[in-house]
C-alpha cells in the first residue's frame, strides 16, 4: 500500500504513538533507577517498559506503512492504557479525593483516547486493507516517516 494514500489522521496518530514510545523509554530508565533505590521489584518493569517502547516504535512505523495489523494492535494497547489509567484515577479519587494530574490526564487518557478513536473512524479504517501487514515494513527501530 502506498502510505501517501493513508488518511492524514494516521500521521498524527503515528506522532502520538512515537511520543508514547518515548515516554515508555523514560519509564524504563526510571524503573532502572528505582531498582537501585527500592530493590528488585522494579527490575522486571524496566524490561517490560523497554519492550513496550520497542513495540510502540515498531507499531508507529508500521502504521505509517499502512499495516492494518498495526492499527488493530495499537487500538488494543491503547485500551489497555486507558483501563489502567481509569483504575489509577479511581484509586486517586477514592483514596485522595483528587484526579490524576494534568500531564497524566494528557498522556494516559487524552492521547490514548484520541489514538483509539482516530483508528476506529470509518474513513481512517477505509484507507487500510483489512488484515494486511505493512507492505514496506522497516526494521522495528526508531524509524521516522517514509520518504
Amino acid at each position: 500500500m502506498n502510505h501517501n494514500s493513508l488518511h492524514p489522521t494516521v500521521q498524527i496518530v503515528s506522532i502520538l504513538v512515537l511520543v508514547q514510545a518515548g515516554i515508555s523509554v523514560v519509564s524504563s530508565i526510571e524503573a532502572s533507577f528505582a531498582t537501585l533505590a527500592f530493590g528488585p521489584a522494579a527490575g522486571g518493569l524496566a524490561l517490560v517498559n523497554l519492550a513496550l517502547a520497542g513495540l510502540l516504535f515498531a507499531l508507529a512505523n508500521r502504521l505509517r506503512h499502512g499495516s492494518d495489523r498495526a492499527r488493530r494492535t495499537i487500538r488494543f494497547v491503547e485500551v489497555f492504557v486507558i483501563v489502567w489509567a481509569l483504575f489509577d484515577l479511581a484509586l486517586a479519587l477514592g483514596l485522595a479525593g483528587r484526579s490524576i494530574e494534568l500531564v497524566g490526564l494528557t498522556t494516559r487518557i487524552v492521547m490514548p483516547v484520541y489514538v483509539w478513536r482516530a483508528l476506529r473512524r470509518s474513513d481512517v479504517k477505509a484507507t487500510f486493507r483489512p488484515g494486511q501487514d505493512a507492505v514496506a515494513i522497516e526494521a522495528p527501530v526508531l524509524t521516522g516517516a517514509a520518504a
Partner: protein
Amino acid sequence: MTSVLAETAILAHSDLVITSVDPGSYLGSPMYAVIPEHQLALFGLVVTILGAWWVRWRANRHASCEETCLYRRYGRLALPERFVFWLVTSSAVIHLGLVLGHEPSGFSLAYLIGTAATSWVAWRMLAGRPWRRPAKYVLVGSVLAYAATLLAGEAPDQMGILTKLIEITALAGVIVVPASGPGRIARSVRSASVVGLLVATAFGAWVGAMSSGDGGHHLGETPPPGVLLPGGEDREPTAAERARAEHLYEETVAALARFEDPAVAAAHGYDVAGMFGNDFHAGNEDLKHDGRILDPHHPETLVYAMAGERPVLLGAMFEMEEIGQAGPAVGGPLTVWHAHDHICLSLAPVGIAGLQSPFGSCPAGAINVPITNEMFHVWVLPGLDDPFGDIDEAWLTEYLAAVELAG
C-alpha cells in the same frame, strides 16, 4: 497508647488538636501540581483548545473567503500541519500566560522571548512561508532551555512539563512527518532526538524537583517528590514539647536496642528478609492494625542499613492505621508526621517500583498509590543532630563506613 502519649493530648501536626486530616490539605512536591503563578497559563491553554474548535468551524464556513483571509490560510494547511500549528500556538499562549502570571524578572523575559518565537513560527505557517527549520530551532531551544533551568535547581510543575510535552510532540510532527524525508538512518536519528528530548525533560524534572526541596520533613519546607507534609509554618518548640520529644527519643532508643540483631526482629514478626541498601524498611503486618499508636515498644516498621555485610539498625517508623488520620505530634514542630504520594507499586512481584514519572505515569505493570497513611521516623543512631528528621546521606555513608571498618 504509650506513656509518651498518655502525658498529652493528641497534638496532631504540632499546633492544632485534630484527629483527621483532609488529604487535599497536604503540601507536596510542585512537580505534581500547577503552581499559582502558572494558572493563568493553564487558562490560556483551555481557551486555545476552545479556539481551535471555533477556528476549525469558521474555516469550514469561510473556505471561499478572500485569498488573504486567515481562515482560508488556515484551511490550506494539511491536517498534520494544523496539528503542529495548534501545538505551537498552545505553547505561545502558555508562554504569554507565564509572562502575565509572574512578577517581572529574567524568567518573565525568557517567557516573553518564548511567546514571540513560537508566535512567529505559527504566523509563518499561516502565511505560507517556510516554517519547518525555524520551528525546529525554536522548539528544541525551548525544551533545552527548560531542561537547563531545571538542572540549575528550578522546581518543575505540571504546567511546565505539559508545555514541554506539547513542544516535543510538535517537534515530532515537524521532523518525523515531513512531506518528504531522508533515508532510514536520518529518520531514525530524528525519532531518537524526540526520545532524547523526552528523556532530557524527565531527567531535568527529577533533578529540579529533588534539588529544590528543603528536605521535606519539617513544617514549611518544600517536600521532595513523593513526600506530603501537613500545611503550616515552622516555629520553635515549647519547653513541654521539647521534653516530650526527648522522652519519646529516649524511650525508643531503649526499646529498640533488642532489635539491633535482625534475627530478634524476625522472631518478633518483622520482615527482614532480603535486607539491602541504606534504607531497608522491615515491616510487621501484625502491628499495623493493633490499635497502638506511636508505641516505642511496638513500632510498625524497623529501618536498617547495610554496613558492608553487617546490618545496622537506624531506627523505627511509626504509622497511623488509616489514610487521613493525623499522627500525634507529641513534640510539636520537632515531631512532624508525613505521608507519601504518587508511589508506584509493582504488582508482580509486589514492591515499590519508584515514584510517578514527570510524564504522569508509573512504569507499565505498576499501579499509582496516590496517598499513604501518615508515618513518622525516630532514628536511634548516636550523634545525629535531628533524630526525627531526615538522615543526611553523606553523614550516614560516613557512619556506615566507620561501622564496617570497625568490623
